[in-house]
């Protein structure tokens, strides 16, 4: 197949990734996408026309050499394909599953101008899964120990990728995590049906094998401060994420049945409340209930689809703009619809209403229309005067994003943050205002993406390495 003509390549249709049947999957938490088999992956890889000036690479936030790894898939050299991806992306099995490819690499793929782009995400996933399942995550060559010690705070994608690079550079690395489990949002936020815990665990296990030390239940700021860390480590990386959920600031938010997305997902994913009472953490009983989810991002989709899996009768996304503005990955929106999620668009909750026992009974919605574009470039939703509606609901989940957690800034007075509490860094080096301290990921950017957090962790690792070699230059 290696010598297909251009025309033949262009004639191959984009290969669909096999999925669990929608009727079936809304009753389980197993992964929706099943992944390509080898022949399908090779066929899809043959759609790549190996552009001289590949645009896809420019669309990738970490500049993975996409045509090269795809060519290796064509040649069935999967081990080498994995190595090529890993030069730039330490978490391909995760990113292949959760990156918004449709606005990144696949958006800039030349094929997308005339038809459907190469399924770069599915291929990335195939290669990463192949490596994990066939040969295990490969341990790259590790440099001689430098005798330097680095503390990495937070075990989300930023922390994990920073630790990965630093350990391979020969530094001793300890990761400190506040929760009892490792992986950050990848384990407490993103559900099993989109990102199996085993995939994340395999990455953590690999780091453990490389020699990274992990300390869970360790809250930097409280258990030990950043200054105390600096007394026993040569540098500190802060990858603590954006965990402080926003609420809507409307009446009724304290009613029972109202959750933040973080609490809802943490109860289900991290604490396994779906398995109550076998697991000890309880959850609002969703069986045959009406659930409203406010928001339109990946988090909102994860919550609404989780609700169906918990037995909800009706699960509705309530979003204040239109479908075109939904910030979620397109695949999640499609999957949600297939599973029976309803979308109420151009509505905004203005009041949550409850009974005398403090339980939620309904939501009052304000109908909206789109006005002129706002600072984000998206058209601003404006209330249509007099048009409100009350809808009975049993549970409501607020999925409108996260602010920044105050613990580290409060306990590290000389660490500069902006007015939203995000840590200020030099974007080239990820250096903070405090000597020896670096930061990256959601705590710097506000809620963003796995790939950006991973990229930031790696830039920080390189810059920490430079600093450890020349500590006087800050």
């Amino acid at each position, binding site marked *: 197949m290696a010598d297909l003509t251009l025309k033949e390549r262009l004639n191959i249709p984009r290969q669909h990734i096999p999925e669990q049947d929608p009727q079936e999957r809304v009753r389980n938490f197993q992964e929706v996408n099943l992944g390509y088999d080898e022949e399908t992956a090779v066929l899809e890889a043959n759609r790549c026309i190996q552009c001289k000036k590949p645009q896809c690479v420019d669309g990738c936030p970490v500049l993975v050499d996409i045509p090269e790894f795809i060519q290796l898939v064509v040649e069935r050299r999967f081990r080498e394909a994995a190595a090529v991806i890993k030069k730039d992306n330490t978490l391909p099995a995760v990113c292949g599953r959760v990156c918004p490819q449709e606005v990144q690499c696949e958006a800039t793929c030349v094929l997308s101008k005339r038809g459907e782009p190469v399924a770069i995400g599915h291929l990335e996933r195939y290669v990463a899964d192949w490596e994990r399942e066939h040969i295990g995550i490969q341990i790259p060559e590790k440099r001689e120990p430098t005798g330097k010690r680095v503390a990495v705070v937070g075990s989300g994608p930023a922390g994990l990728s920073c630790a990965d690079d630093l350990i391979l550079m020969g530094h001793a690395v300890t990761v400190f995590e506040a929760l009892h489990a490792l992986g950050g949002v990848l384990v407490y936020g993103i559900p099993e049906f989109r990102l199996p815990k085993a995939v994340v665990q395999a990455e953590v296990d690999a780091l453990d094998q490389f020699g990274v030390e992990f300390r869970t239940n360790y809250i930097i700021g409280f258990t030990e401060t950043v200054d105390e860390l600096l007394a026993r480590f040569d540098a500190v990386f802060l990858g603590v994420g954006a965990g402080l*959920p926003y609420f809507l600031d409307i009446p009724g938010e304290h009613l029972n049945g109202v959750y*933040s997305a973080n609490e809802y997902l943490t109860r289900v994913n991290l604490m396994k409340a779906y398995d109550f009472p076998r697991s*000890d953490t309880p959850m609002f009983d969703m069986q045959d209930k009406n659930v409203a989810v406010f928001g339109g991002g990946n988090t909102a989709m994860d919550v609404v689809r989780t609700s169906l899996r918990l037995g909800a009768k009706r699960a509705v996304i309530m979003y204040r703009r239109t479908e075109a503005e939904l910030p979620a990955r397109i695949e999640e929106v499609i999957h949600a619809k297939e599973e029976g999620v309803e979308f109420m668009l151009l509505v905004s909750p203005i009041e949550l209403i409850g009974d005398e026992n403090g339980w939620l009974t309904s939501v009052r919605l304000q109908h909206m229309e789109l006005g002129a574009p706002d600072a984000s470039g998206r058209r601003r939703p404006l209330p249509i005067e007099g048009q409100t509606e009350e809808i009975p609901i049993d549970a409501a989940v607020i999925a409108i994003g996260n602010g920044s957690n105050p613990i580290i800034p409060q306990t590290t007075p000389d660490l500069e943050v902006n007015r939203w509490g995000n840590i200020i860094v030099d974007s080239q080096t990820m250096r903070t205002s405090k000597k020896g301290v670096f930061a990256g990921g959601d705590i710097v950017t506000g809620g963003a993406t796995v790939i950006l957090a991973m990229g930031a962790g790696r830039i920080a690792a390189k810059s920490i390495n430079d600093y450890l070699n020349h500590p006087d230059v800050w």
Partner: protein
Amino acid sequence: MNTIVEARFLGPDTKLLRIVAPPIARKRKPGQFVIARVHAEGERIPLTIADADAEQGTITLIVLGIGKTTKLINTLEAGDCLEDLAGPLGQPSDIQNFGTAVCIGGGVGTAVVFPIAKALKSAGNYVISIAGGRDAASVILENELRQISDEVYPTTDDGSHGFHGLVTDKLQELIDAGQRIDYVFASGPVPMMQAVAAITARYEIKTGVSLNPIMVDGTGMCGGCRALVNNQTVFVCVDGPEFDAHQVDFDTLMLRNRMYREQEEASLDAHQCKLEAHADMRRA
């Protein structure tokens, strides 16, 4: 890790556990708490650090066995370990020399009050402690309080020990007797804290309470612990747990604390047998 070195009952369902946790013992300040899990499928529950010994690297927790997890914790003995222990969490208590401070604990709330009373005493206050309970057995830490207070009043609902009446009755009696009070700190069941706040508001006595909402992470990540204080939403785990009693919306807190009542009862029933089997096993 997290090994229990001492475990003894203070009352029928109230157990004291001293646990090896050197970093927490070193760092904790009065008013802070930990999040604990008993086993791999366990829930995360907040427990106040009742005391700590930095040199020995131990912290003391006092647990009232009412739900599945707390009952399970109370089956643990010296030598057992907790699965997870994270902390110290929350803002330390507001410790100043107010003058005369009355520290009021209801039931296991006395465990929250104890470290704060101790710190208030060290800060130079004249400390009056009121420790209430249903009956004599549920008044805890009375002896410990005697060592760090200037006056101690146990109170019981049934009159079986000390003052016959509620902690608030005792507080009112002190006020009526002309006792000068500059500060009140209270911890216990929500209705008790609400009643204390109502009295001290009348006399304009500055009052602190330590809130006890349902928590998950304890680090500000989930918002499940939110409460209304001064009409603003606060996250008790990171903004508290201590707040100005006169600004807390106790009614909302009370309703929110009932959120999982049904599930908790079901889960408790389901596990009661297991617990009993477990206890039998231990005895055997």
